């Protein structure tokens, strides 16, 4: 009977461990990658807006040589606040499916004003063709701005869809996992109804196994993926993704250590109590 109970408890510990790890991953995903607030916090923490500002400056500068305009024309086209607001609006559109509105009209007005001032200061009369070239150039500068603050402009719709799908899956997974977890917990309690310490030991075993698994997952990911050298679209975005992966892995590591400690303590304490009881 004791052996049978031991086997049943081991199976229950296995199931508990699976639901612990799955639950941890689900909660972690919904609190990090699928959480708008977390993303915005990480963007600020990684100086993403500052990096986009530098990227924008370089982007405008790339057109300076071919435009024939001096540096002054490219000054004050956008502010840090504008960039921050527009980037956050893109994030909002990803998570809430809202339409993105940005400050590109302001950028266009500013570059028009700068060009006008330059032409006025240099007493330059422009031909009709040149006027057309200037308008095309202004549109190009607006495009540069929209591309840079749009983060991954061409993929925004796909990202919104992926996040929506992810949220749906996570919501279902949460319900299923909570149900499964409660059912297994009740079953474990019922089996060990006369021996509460065995119940604690079973929980402890599953916690210990879950902790080891979380550590293993973190180890395998770090070993197999060269996180430091990920390059996606821009340096700013790559840095942000790297930091986010490290943050998530860090959470795996700390939670794993915590679960291992709690698991070992539960097993040791419950068996010491058993000794004392006997």
């Amino acid at each position, binding site marked *: 009977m004791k052996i049978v109970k031991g086997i049943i408890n081991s199976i229950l510990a296995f199931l508990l461990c*699976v639901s612990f790890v799955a639950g941890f991953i689900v909660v972690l995903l919904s609190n990090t990658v699928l959480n708008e607030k977390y993303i915005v916090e990480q963007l600020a923490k990684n100086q993403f807006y500052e990096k986009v500002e530098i990227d924008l400056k370089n982007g405008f500068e790339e057109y300076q*040589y071919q435009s024939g305009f001096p540096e002054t024309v490219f000054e004050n086209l956008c502010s840090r606040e504008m960039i921050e607001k527009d980037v956050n609006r893109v994030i909002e559109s990803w998570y809430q499916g809202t339409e993105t509105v940005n400050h590109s009209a302001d950028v266009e007005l500013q570059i028009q004003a700068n060009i006008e001032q330059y032409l006025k200061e240099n007493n330059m009369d422009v031909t009709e063709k040149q006027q057309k070239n200037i308008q095309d150039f202004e549109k190009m500068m607006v495009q540069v701005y929209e591309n840079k603050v749009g983060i991954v402009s061409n993929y925004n719709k796909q990202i919104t869809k992926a996040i929506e799908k992810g949220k749906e899956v996570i919501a279902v997974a949460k319900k299923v996992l909570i149900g499964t977890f409660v059912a297994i917990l009740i079953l474990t309690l019922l089996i060990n109804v006369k021996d509460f310490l065995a119940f604690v030991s079973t929980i402890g075993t*599953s916690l210990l196994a879950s902790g080891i698994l979380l550590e293993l997952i973190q180890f395998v990911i770090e070993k197999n*993926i060269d996180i430091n050298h990920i390059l996606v679209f821009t340096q700013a975005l790559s840095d942000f993704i790297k930091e986010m992966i490290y943050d998530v892995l860090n959470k795996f590591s700390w939670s794993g250590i915590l679960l291992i400690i709690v698991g070992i303590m539960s097993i040791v304490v419950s068996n*010491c109590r058993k000794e004392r009881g006997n």
Partner: protein
Amino acid sequence: MQNKYKKEGLKATIFYGIVAFLIVIVICMISIRFGKEKFLMATDLVDMITIDTQKLQEEPIPPVLENFEEETEDQNFSVLLNPPDYGAQYATLKIPSIEIDLPIFYGKTLDLLKKGIGHDNDSYFPGEGGSIVLMGHNYSKFLRKLPQAKIGDEIQISTNYGEFIYQIYDTQIVNEYDTDKVPITDQEEILMIYTCWPINNVGYATERYVVYSKVM
């Protein structure tokens, strides 16, 4: 009696510890059995967006121009082995008559054009026998003087696999979308260098000034 219970407690602790490790092993085995392929697919996907650090540490292998001789002379061709990486500087462009001496980078992004002359990566390398397309901004430190070059002037391209000298035989002003005017073919080694036109343009330039030259 108390010793016996102590032993049993220790035994139970070890038992639960072993069970925990067995659970980990079983889950790992199940994951490897059913998730290995997906994991490898995911790592491959990440590898695609990861810079190859090993390649970064390696010394670049110098390019070599390899000649392949066929049965008839007109079928002979040359291929540049170990071509430069995209974005790497591999040559210099000199047009002595208008005092142009600039580095050539393999690629045509605006980022590269900020540093010097770009080499259209769809075109051939000097010595390969096909058309070579180079471009640069019409800014003073780049190709502003290009329209001053005359038919008959010499153009030199120095690479670490050889020196190539061309002679200008034509110049043209073409629309930016008129790609037929800068054709890429393997029939003849024609060097085409272009810059934005007009030189004193303001705004977005829709025309290009092209200089055509042939191997001397």
